[in-house]
């Protein structure tokens, strides 16, 4: 005979796997990072301490601030270009493509690359933009260039291009969802009340799809902000991201305390962006209740 377990025990059983996961893989590592960020480096190792030297270094040494600002700039440009490409595309899918099958296919055309390895997708751009790449051979064959140019690769532009390509699905998906959720009769009502197409877009469609834009912006920004693979592949020294610097601190430089401090600054920035976007989304929530 088995006794039924008390409700509290059953609740705990259901909740414990995710709880253990969060504690083990989120809470513990972040705590370690937090503690490390106050330690002191004494080459070739580091000793426990409680001091703000690492944070002071971040502020006083301009290279960290410069890299951080560059990373923010690249991430912001990636989000911006993703938005400029994704919004018209999603709008076109929702409002202009009548056949559901075609719409689905075109939507999947954007989303499907997510199933391909990230590394492979970023690497593709190396082969497109490189001196032996498709772009150069095309320009030479059309006679615009006489010899291969290295200017397309290893700079911030190639970073923005690659990361935009890699993360654009995360912009298309929320915008598409937001646009599709707008009831068609709202657009008809707007036309009925005398508004032309442009006015209807500006007064109804755009405001009601803003939650999707914010969600997409948050996702692409945070993903691009934390990226460090693309910098290795297509970035070059001018395209270094803050994550690359962090990786170096934990690797070659063997300065875990400084790396931890950098990682925490980065985390705070990302959390700040997420909480702002979350607040915005909650602001718009009533709109669809």
């Amino acid at each position: 005979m088995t006794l039924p377990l008390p409700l509290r025990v059953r609740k705990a059983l259901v909740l414990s796997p995710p709880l253990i996961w969060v504690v083990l893989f989120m809470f513990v590592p972040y705590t370690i990072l937090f503690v490390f960020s106050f330690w002191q480096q004494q080459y070739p190792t580091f000793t426990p301490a409680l001091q703000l030297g690492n944070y002071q270094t971040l502020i006083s040494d301009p290279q960290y601030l410069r890299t951080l600002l560059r990373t923010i700039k690249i991430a912001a440009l990636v989000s911006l270009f993703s938005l400029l490409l994704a919004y018209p595309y999603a709008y076109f899918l929702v409002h202009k493509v009548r056949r559901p099958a075609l719409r689905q296919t075109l939507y999947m055309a954007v989303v499907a690359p997510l199933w391909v390895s990230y590394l492979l997708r970023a690497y593709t751009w190396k082969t497109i933009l490189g001196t032996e790449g498709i772009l150069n051979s095309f320009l030479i064959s059309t006679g615009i260039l006489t010899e291969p140019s290295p200017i397309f690769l290893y700079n911030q532009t190639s970073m923005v291009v690659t990361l935009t390509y890699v993360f654009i699905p995360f912009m298309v998906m929320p915008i598409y969802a937001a646009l599709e959720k707008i009831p068609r009769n709202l657009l008809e009502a707007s036309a009925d009340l005398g508004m032309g197409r442009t006015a209807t877009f500006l007064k109804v469609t755009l405001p009601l799809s803003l939650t999707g834009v914010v969600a997409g912006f948050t996702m692409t920004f945070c993903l691009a902000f934390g990226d460090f693979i693309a910098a290795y592949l297509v970035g070059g020294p001018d395209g270094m991201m803050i994550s690359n610097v962090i990786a170096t601190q934990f690797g070659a430089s063997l300065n875990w305390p400084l790396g931890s401090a950098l990682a925490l600054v980065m985390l705070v920035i990302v959390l700040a962006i997420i909480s702002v976007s979350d607040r915005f989304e909650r602001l718009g929530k009533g709109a669809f209740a």
Partner: protein
Amino acid sequence: MTNIIRLDGLSKHFGSVIGVDDVSLSVRKGEFLTLLGPSGCGKSTLLRMIGGFEEPTAGQIWLDGEDVTDLPPNRRAVNMLFQDYALFPHMSVGKNVGYGLKVAGTPKREVETRVLEVLDLVGLADKAGAAPHQLSGGQQQRVALARAIVRQPKVLLLDEPLSALDANLREAMQVELRHLHQKVGLTFIMVTHDQTEALTMSDRVIVMRAGRIVQDGAPQSLYDLPGSPYIADFIGTTNLFASRIENGRIACHGQPLTIDPQSILPGARTFGFRPEKARLLRGDANGSNLLRGKVAEVFYHGSVARIIVDLGAGQVLVDLQITDAAAGLPQLGDAVAVEIAAHKIMGFAAEDAA
């Protein structure tokens, strides 16, 4: 009175499917007209063509003497009350109502005054600052109504306006819409599949079937003089049966009935009578024009009981007015007689009873 809307041979085809088939119609200024029909009969498509949301395949739409067939919705002086209100969720009630006034370049002060006026008209003057989702379904409906009439359109189109409301509220809104119609003096064109709603509210009802108009008339004439068995059965309930006239008599499920030759064409093949126009008598009663049978089922409605009488070869419905509850209801299996006066029998040329 002058015609505010004229439809000339209006058709709408969706690929090979015919939505509206060669409809011509005039609507008088200030009229409350209802398009009535089952779902898929083309009534909504017709309304949407008048609003400019569907492009006609053929025909013309004239609004107040102007051909508006090719004009987009924003250039037509008609407004629509949408089925599920279509209120802008990101704007306050006041902004929703004022939305259509801004286009016209109305000064801000005047917009505010007119918004408040029209909100007052629908009894929601205190809700101007509320968000649509904070209102009940009935209130949202009034806001949508206010928004549709604030521009003083030449015609107000109402697309199944009451279908989303619950029964009590629906009756209250029926009354309110009618009062509003009288008060503002606009032309109303309403679409509904609910025949009670159509009869209660409108000056004139257009019954549609398969994209065509099958009858056009005042509510009373539709009910009392239906043009076909289809309408007799669609508007209210009718006991329909097929028969031939022989010596001034017909057979209802095998039992003879006398008809009034003056009210029925000689070629009629389908006949019918309304359940409330027949009388239920005891089985041993004598009289003329009696159908004898047994009670097969009793539906009690409070003020009325609808009785299904089994005549042997078929069944008919009879309504029994309950004026004295002590008299009791007939029991299943009771022998009864149904008396129907000759002039209350309707006759139609051959057509399948829908």
